[in-house]
């Protein structure tokens, strides 16, 4: 290590930073799904990570077993995840509307177990090696010392596009504004003639479609695909959403990037065993300084 020149070290740092941003971009897309569902349905959808896994499996099966064009497979996977998300919402969460948020949390965990075990039965116990659907030449900088993979470029671009599109959708369109209204005050929104159930279902549909995209991005960069693939990235993305301020769309984006970069840098420069512990430690410190996350709304308690 000592023999490395300062310049090399700087280059290593930059390539680590790029890996971090790439990982962060994936977390951000997952976190966007989390944060939307939380903001509108006021529930922690722990099954979100498993919808990601389902989305990846759909693409994997279509491309390797049926020879479908990867981009078409992505679209089919988005549709499948949307339907899955809406089905889950209809049968597992909707009956509990009005019940304690904890009850919904537990049901979400049940759904998560169900999806993981169902996937194991359908797709086998051995992990798959996901074939990246993104295939163009990686970008080479500094005479080949820094390689930015094609997946990284696409991940970052896609996450930024999704964030902008979502922000526009929520703020400029009618269904989007209905979402804002429902998240602000469900009762009042209903009185104003907004279809609350429909809005919540729409939120789940969008969140699940995003999960399909996130799944493909995740597995294209990190090809290990098994029935528990979505679980830990799901939790990390949840952490990211909280870190950024849960319910906030740009917050999810920032939170995701921060978590991704810290994870990679922590692993490279502090300890590879403790990478997760470092991520969680940063979360704790940030929340103690800013108790509602980086971009979280400060709420005033009324007496």
């Amino acid at each position: 290590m000592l023999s490395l020149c300062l310049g090399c070290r700087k280059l290593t740092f930059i390539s680590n930073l790029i890996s971090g941003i790439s990982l962060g971009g994936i977390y951000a897309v997952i976190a966007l799904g989390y944060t939307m569902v939380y903001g509108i349905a006021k529930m922690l959808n722990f099954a979100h990570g498993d919808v990601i896994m389902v989305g990846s499996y759909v693409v994997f099966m279509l491309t390797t077993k049926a020879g479908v064009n990867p981009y078409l497979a992505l679209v089919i996977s988005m549709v499948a995840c949307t339907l899955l998300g809406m089905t889950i919402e209809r049968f597992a969460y909707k009956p509990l509307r009005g019940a304690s948020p904890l009850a919904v949390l537990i049901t979400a965990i049940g759904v998560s177990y169900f999806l993981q075990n169902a996937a194991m039965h359908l797709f086998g116990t051995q992990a798959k090696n996901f074939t990246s659907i993104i295939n163009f030449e990686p970008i080479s900088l500094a005479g080949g010392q820094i390689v930015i993979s094609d997946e990284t470029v696409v991940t970052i671009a896609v996450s930024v596009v999704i964030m902008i599109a979502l922000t526009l959708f929520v703020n400029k369109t009618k269904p989007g504004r209905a979402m804002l209204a429902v998240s602000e005050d469900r009762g009042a929104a209903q009185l104003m003639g907004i279809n609350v159930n429909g809005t919540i279902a729409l939120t789940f549909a969008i969140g699940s479609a995003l999960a399909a995209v996130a799944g493909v991005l995740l597995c294209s960069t990190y090809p290990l695909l098994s029935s528990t693939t979505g679980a830990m990235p799901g939790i990390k993305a949840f952490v990211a959403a909280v870190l950024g301020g849960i319910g906030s769309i740009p917050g999810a984006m920032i939170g995701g990037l921060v978590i991704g970069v810290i994870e990679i840098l922590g692993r490279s420069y502090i300890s590879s065993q403790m990478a997760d512990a470092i991520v969680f430690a940063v979360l704790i410190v940030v929340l103690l300084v800013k108790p509602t996350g980086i971009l979280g709304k400060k709420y005033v308690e009324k007496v």
Partner: protein
Amino acid sequence: MKTKSRRLGKNTKNDLITYGIVIAAFVVAEVMQATGSMSSLLRGLLVPLCMYSILAVSLNLTVGVLGELSLGHAGFMCIGAYASSIFSVCTRETITEVWIRFPLAILVGGIFAAIFGFLIGIPVLRLKGDYLAIVTLAFGEIIKNILGSVYVGYDANGVYVSLESESSLAMGADGTLLINGPLGLSDVPLDANFIIATVLLLLTLFVVLNFMNSRSGRAVMSIRDNRIAAESVGINITKYKLIAFTLSAFFAGIAGVLYSHNLGYLAAKSSNFGYNQSIMILVFVVLGGIGKMRGSVIAACILTALPELLRELNDYRMLIYAIALIIMMIATASPKANAFWEAHSLKKFISAKKENKPAKEVQ
């Protein structure tokens, strides 16, 4: 004043029923064991059932009484398990009487968990709601992560700690390895048994139920119901929150002691001390009824035994378990189901028949 004393009486009666159920279950189990009519599976489950009940009751203290969502309960269990197991392994030669060593181990496990509960509680309890939940999850994961990969050994010169490998401890030739990284402690004395576990469960229930009826407990509940009102009548919010949180961690630590001394083997994995385990304990609490200790015990027993009883289903076991979990939750918590149960409640049926009075006011 009259109404107050009657209410207390009702509480005491309710608590006695809870103890009664535990003692009755204990007697039934002992009789079954004595007559040899108990399956090995159930015999092996006795201590875990008590352990999970203790975990559920102690978490219910945080979730139900204090009103804060904690997703790091398994972390305290992990600390209790490690502290007590190290104690037991180190003192196995010096304290040969189990009846002295094990109670001491229980105390060590509980106190260590309580210390960490206190230290973690100071920053964490300043947060609210889901933010608090995620920070407890983070602490739980850090604890599991560190204890799951640490190597600890000792020799004549002192104690060595490394996160990397056994050889980087660089102990002398007389060195003894205490914690072997992810392999943990492979030989913890098997000191736990059903009688001690039942006593510990009763003790946990006794302390928690009495705490709820005590001055401190009422202060804690007043914070849960209305923090600002509680503050305005001069209740020290931080102090009472910390008391409840530390007590909860203490009993989680005791459950950890039971865990390792029942298995004889201890390693921190995602399956036993990760966030999944914390969430499982939370499931017991929510399904059993938030703030209801008896419900926690019953739910913990049912949900621990259920996957074992579903073994006949082979590979579909966990799939069915997941569906059962969703159905149970919807059947107990959804507003529609509640209305249905209210309309068909046995109590109402009986009271309507006996007294022929209009149904009681629904709360």
